[in-house]
C-alpha cells in the first residue's frame, strides 16, 4: 500500500483528478457541438472519453506495475497456454530411482563387502548408466525433431 502514498504517486493522483474530468467535459462539449450541427465533432465526441480511459490506464500502470513484473506474468501465461517444452518424462524410471536412493531396508541390508552388496552396487551403477543413455537419446531426438514450424521459423530449426 506504500506505493499509493509516495510523492510520485501523489503527482499521478493529482494529474488524474484534473485530466479525467477535463476530458469528459471536453467530450460533453464536443457532443453539444455535434448535436448542434457540426458533423466533424462526432469524431471528437468519442475521442475525448478514450483519452480519459488512457489517463486512468496510465495512472494505474505508473503506480502499480514494474515492466519486469508485467513481462514475467505475460511469459508465465504464454507458457501455460502453449505448454512450452515437453511434459518432461522422468529420465530415471521410478524403480531405478528407488534402488539408487534406498540404502537400507528389510531386504536391502547385506553386510558391507559381502557378495550380495557388491552385486547390488553393480546393478545400481548399470541402471544409472542405462538411465543416462536413455536421457541422452531423448535429448538427441529433441534436437533432431526441432521446434514447431512457424512463419518465423519455417524449417522448424531448434
Amino acid at each position, binding site marked *: 500500500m506504500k506505493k499509493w502514498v*509516495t510523492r510520485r504517486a501523489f503527482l499521478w493522483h493529482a494529474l488524474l483528478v484534473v485530466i479525467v474530468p477535463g476530458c469528459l467535459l471536453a467530450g460533453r462539449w464536443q457532443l453539444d457541438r455535434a448535436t448542434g450541427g457540426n458533423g*466533424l465533432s462526432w469524431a471528437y465526441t468519442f*475521442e475525448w472519453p478514450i*483519452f480519459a480511459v*488512457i489517463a486512468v490506464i496510465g495512472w494505474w500502470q505508473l503506480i502499480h506495475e514494474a*515492466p519486469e513484473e508485467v513481462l514475467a506474468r505475460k*511469459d508465465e501465461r504464454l507458457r501455460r497456454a502453449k505448454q512450452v517444452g515437453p511434459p518432461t518424462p522422468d529420465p530415471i524410471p521410478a524403480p531405478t530411482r528407488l534402488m539408487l536412493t534406498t540404502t537400507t531396508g528389510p531386504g536391502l541390508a547385506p553386510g558391507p563387502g559381502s557378495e550380495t552388496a557388491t552385486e547390488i552396487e553393480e546393478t545400481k551403477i548399470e541402471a544409472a548408466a542405462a538411465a543416462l543413455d536413455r536421457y541422452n537419446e531423448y535429448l538427441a531426438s529433441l534436437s533432431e525433431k526441432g521446434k514447431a514450424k512457424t512463419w518465423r521459423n519455417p524449417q522448424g530449426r531448434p
Partner: protein
Amino acid sequence: MTTPSRAQRWSSLESSLARYRVMAWVVGVGLAIVVFVGIPLQFGAGDDIVVQVVGTAHGYLYIIYLFFALDLARRARFTLPEMAAMVGAGLIPGLAFVIERKITAKVRSGDARPWRFPWQRRTEPADRA
C-alpha cells in the same frame, strides 16, 4: 533460453522505442498536414476536406501514439516533464520531430538522468518509482 520469446522481444526497450518513433512520425506528419495545408485551405479557399479527413485520422492516430508513449515512458522510467513533452508533441505542429529525436537520444544513451526544460532547476527528483 538463448532466443528471447516473442513477448520478450515485444517488450524490449528498443522495440518499445521503435513503436513510439513510428507513431511520433505519423502523428507529426498528420498534424503538420492539418495545420499547414488543411487550415489554410479551410479559411483561404473554403475547402475543409483536408481538415475533415486528416484531422479526424490524426485524432485517432494520436490515441495509438499516446498508448505507445505511455508504454515507453513506463519502461524507460520517464519523469513528468518528459511525459508532458511526449503528450504535447502530438498537439503542437513540428514539435513531434524534435521531441522524438531527444527521446530517442536519451533512451539510446541509457542515461538515467531526466532531461529538463530550460527553465527547470537542476535538482534530482526525491523519489523515482
